[in-house]
Every structure is written in structure tokens, then in C-alpha cells.
């Protein structure tokens, strides 16, 4: 077994950075849960709820994307 310890730690760091995606997953789940509950109770609000739900999902998702960007920056040796 041989290799560069710096390369190894780069992969470990990228993996650790992606832990943040867990929180984003919980956030997306919660917002979809709320929107679906609202749609089930009041089907007339479907369009309005869908728009706002997609907005909320995009907010939560962007947190995961920040983690992904950090992971990529480590993987591709930018910093």
C-alpha cells in the first residue's frame, strides 16, 4: 500500500463536507410534507402551494449544493 497522505485526506475531507447534505434532506422532506398536507386538505391551493414548495425545496437544496461545491473544490485540487 503506497500513496500520498495528502491525496487520501482530500477524499476524506470531501466525504466529511457532504455530511451537510443530511440537513438539507431533512429540510426538503419537511417542506414537501407540509405542502402535501396542505394539498390534501385543500386541493384548490395546489398550484400556489406547488410554486412555493419548489422555492422552499430549492432553498434547502442550495445548502446541500454548497457542501457539494466544497467537496468538489477539495476533490479537484482547486484550493
Amino acid at each position, binding site marked *: 500500500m503506497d500513496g500520498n497522505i495528502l491525496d487520501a485526506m482530500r477524499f476524506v475531507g470531501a466525504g466529511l463536507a457532504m455530511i451537510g447534505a443530511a440537513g438539507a434532506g431533512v429540510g426538503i422532506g419537511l417542506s414537501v410534507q407540509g405542502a402535501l398536507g396542505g394539498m390534501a386538505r385543500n386541493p384548490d391551493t395546489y398550484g400556489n402551494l406547488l410554486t412555493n414548495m419548489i*422555492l422552499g425545496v430549492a*432553498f434547502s*437544496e*442550495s445548502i446541500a*449544493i*454548497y457542501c*457539494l*461545491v466544497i467537496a*468538489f473544490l477539495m476533490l*479537484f485540487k482547486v484550493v
Partner: protein
Amino acid sequence: METQKRTPWRRWIVLVLMVAGFILGGIYAPVQPEITVAAEKLIEEPLTENFLGFAGPFYLVNTLPTLAVTIVLLLVIGFAANRSLKKSQQTDLVPRGIGNVMEAILEMLYNMTEGSAGTKWAKAIFPWFATIMIYVLFANLLKLIPGFESIGVIHHAHGEGHAIAELGGGWANILPEKLEHDGYILAPFFRGISVDLNFTLSLALISFFAIQVMGVRAQGLGYFSKFFNTKRMFKVPFFGAMDFLVGLLEIISEFAKILSFTFRLFGNMFAGVVLVAVVASLLGKISILPAMIMMFELFVGLIQAFVFGMLTMVFMAMATQGHGDEEHAEH
């Protein structure tokens, strides 16, 4: 108007192209592209040594051709829609073709603006929203055209590269085999412009300044009392000081908007590029899966364009409404 039965021959073209892509992907195995965060240079030497006198060397990077294509496409669509609407005005007032499509899209967006910004400011906010949304939509979707990110200049790799096979006439094909030395990598002619931090950062700056301008237009200089809150400073000293500190935090959150706008769009589109590359290299000769991921990319591109425009619109609406003790939306 009676409808005649049309023969849907165009959809067969799509099917034939899909099958041809599947077979060609089996013959010429997909090569994992070189993934770089910055845009690649098409020509090694800078076009001008000192751009505008102070900005340093200016390189021809491969997002510039895509930017030109995007702008030309938008101009063509704009002129075509204008002509189509003018023609319908002269005949029977029924919009047809591209004019009809653009009218439907813009009407939908305008109703959305009116819904969240109110009728008073919708006229001022709508152009920003629609412009940003349509521009980012084209920027995101243009890279789904075949040939984007796959045809380009082959040059020597500094590190690990690929072997090439000459096709004749100055053209060559990159082979999947990896070489330690003397390898070649590809710098494509066209790279999606939203996969470039410069594009997303400049859009974020434009949207940020437009938000401030909209706030000042609506509330005058009182808009800045959101940031330097001295209203209650002398009446209730403790809570007044608290308000002042919260206002300072508001400045930070205002500048964080630039960062979050920039990295949301860039991160999503860059993640798409990496995803396609990784999936293509996972399966080797089976090329149907990257096509599926491309379909997902279409969805992501649409959503991100919508989110960018929508957020600009919502922040502008918040800036026009002034502030009291309302809760602040998280971004």
C-alpha cells in the same frame, strides 16, 4: 376552422436520433471529460495584454462563444416574437406561433409578480424578473444541445491525459485509454455559461444592486434605516441599541445574498456537469444513462432559472414594502 389530420413525421426524427446516439455510444465509448472549475482557454495567449487598461490579460475562454450564441438566440427570438405580434395586430388580433408562446409565458410571469409584489410595483419589478429568468433559462438549457462540451480544441495535458486517434483533416478523436505522459485533453468550444463563476457572480451583482435601487425608489432614503436603525435609539436606549445591532446584521445578510445567488446557480449547474461525466465513465459503452441524467439536467436548469428570477422578485418586493416588525424571510 376545421382541423386537418397532420402526419407526425417529426417525432420519428427524435426517435431515430435517440437510437443512433445509443448505437454510436456503443461504438465510440464515452470519455470522461476533463472537469475544471474555471473555464478553459481556447487560445493560450491572451487576446489583449491589459484589458480596458487596468483589468489584466483577457483570454478567449470557452464560455465566451456560448455567451455570444445565447445573446444572438435571445435577440432572434425577441425580433421574431415582435414581428409575429405585429402581424397578428394587423390581421385579426389573434396571436399565433412564437408570439403566442411568448405572450403566454410573459402573462404567467406577470401574474406571478402581481401575486407577490402587489399591483403597484409589479410594473417596475416585472422586467427584472422576466429578463433574469429567461436569460438564465437559455443559459442553462443551451448546453443540452449535442456538441456542446464535447467538440473542441485538443491540447497537451500537463498531467494525465488520453490517447488520440487521427481522423484526418486535422480532426482527432479522444480514446478512453489513459496515458501517464504525452496525453491529450480536450478544451471544448462551447461550455455552458452558467458553469462559470463570472457569469453567475455578475448576474448576482446586477440583481443585488437592482434590489437596492428598487428599495430606494420605493422608500427614499428611509430604505437605509433598515441597515442603520436609529429610530428608537434615544427613546428606549437598550432596545434601540439592540435594533441598531440587528440592522448591522442585516447588512451582512444583504451581502450574503450575493454569495448565495452566485453559488446556488453555479453549484447546481457544475454538479450537473460532474454528474453526467461520472455516470458516463461508470458504464463505459452503455450510453443511455447519461441521456437520462441530461433529462434531469433539463429539469434542474428550469428550476434554477425560476428560482433565480423568483428570488430577485421576492427580495425586490420585500425592499419596496419597507420594514416594521415583520419577520424576515430566510434565504
